[in-house]
């Protein structure tokens, strides 16, 4: 289990792990969320909504929900494909960085 309080920033509120992103664990959590989001929209069948790309951008055409689902899928899928591996790789590099370069006030090494 992730103890969010352990990640809390100076103000100590429960959602503050979101502000404390620049740690290996913070990056891994964000990568996991992107992957989970991508999986969720895929399970919802929103992949099909990518067809909005092949529809006309002419003014007045109501793509509405199709476009919303398509954009959500696109963002989360690209996030999962490009950003999540980058975050995981960044987490690994940061972990190594913290091991070899311990800093005052940061006991990560």
């Amino acid at each position: 289990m992730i103890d969010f309080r352990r990640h809390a920033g100076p103000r100590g509120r429960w959602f503050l792990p979101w502000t404390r992103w620049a740690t290996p664990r913070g990056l891994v959590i964000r990568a996991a969320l992107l992957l989970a989001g991508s999986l969720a929209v895929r399970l919802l069948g929103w992949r099909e909504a990518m067809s909005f790309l092949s529809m006309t951008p002419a003014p007045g055409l109501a793509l509405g929900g199709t476009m919303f689902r398509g954009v959500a899928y696109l963002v989360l899928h690209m996030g999962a494909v490009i950003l999540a591996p980058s975050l995981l790789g960044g987490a690994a590099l940061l972990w190594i960085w913290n091991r070899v370069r311990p800093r005052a006030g940061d006991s990560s090494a």
Partner: protein
Amino acid sequence: MKPSDSAVPNATAGRPRVLAAVLCIGVSLVAVLATTRFCYRPDPVDSPWTDGVAPTARAIVQGQTAALATATDPDGATARMRRSNPEWDFMGRTFLVMALGEVALRDAASAPANFRVVDRIVRDTLEVESTKGPRAFLMAYAKGRPYRVQPARSLFVDGELAMMLGVECRVARAAGATNDPAALAAAAGLRARVAQIEESLAKAGDGFAESYPDECWIFDHAFALAALRLADRELGSDHDALSRRWLARAKVALREPATGLPYSAFTIEGRPSEGPEGSSVWLAAHLFGAVDPAFARELYSKSKLHLARGFLGFAWSREWPPSLRTREDIDSGVVVPGVDASPSASGLVMIAAASFGDRAFLSELRTSLEFAGFPIRDGNGLRYAASNGVGDAVLLYALVVGPMWREIAAPEGKP
């Protein structure tokens, strides 16, 4: 995990930590971007240069013919496509027929079955034309004002129907079914359609033939000339002089001065209404290859210079040259911001790359397609979520173009 994550940051540690994190993510991002292409690059065997039919092409054929088998359009895909643009329904048929013609020549065993499918598509298309009129395949503005040349004809419809009929004749030969009533009907239909194109071009005189009221397209003229060439092969006619005259006029009148590319749309007199567009010039380059290979290759090279873009093993096409960018429309599709990638131009460029033997470029284009086209493989074969019926048919044709096209473009040798 280390206790670092639990440590409460202080002001002096926070900034270096954030900088270190940004640096690490940046390095990782570069590595991911540089290697992503390897996950999406197509197998070299899965290309138009393979013997037989590429596996991806087979999967798309399965998907497209499965859709044809259900005449009721159960998921409404064709209806949705027609609502967006009726042209796409028509063009989807054309590209599928051309692709099936190529498949029939690549895989002789498939020729009889492909002949039946092609005949079914052609008959259905002719029936729609005869019952609803040729404007059933045109966008609504075709009804907004009268054609200047009467009786009204659309070179868009006549050119592509002639191509379909010509391909049916060729597939009938491949299937050994030239005496089949369907093949004889196709030959008669081709003769009539060729006569119609001749008449439209003749009425245009020193001008150009309309696809929409006072709106002529390089795309449609290229289709018409290529269809005439195919008809020459199948019927023994000779339109070389007509094609040469048209090309000589177009090379001068339709040349956009800044790029040397042809205007996409123009009036009967040749006054430009749309500048060079990727969704027109790539296919025009391919089709002109049947009638003037040197000009076609020059057009391909210029188009590549002004429209093709690539990055880290991915490639795509712009819809407009940078200096001539205009607003998005039905032809460009939704242009991807930042990279200016046009879905339609990036699809049609694959046909050109395949027919001009540009293997590296086609591989990079397909890498982009697999990455951003969102392929869906299921029991009905393969289709692309970011595409539609016509997009899938274009890709299919790009993957199989070869034997039939080389035959059409061959400088000599009537059947």
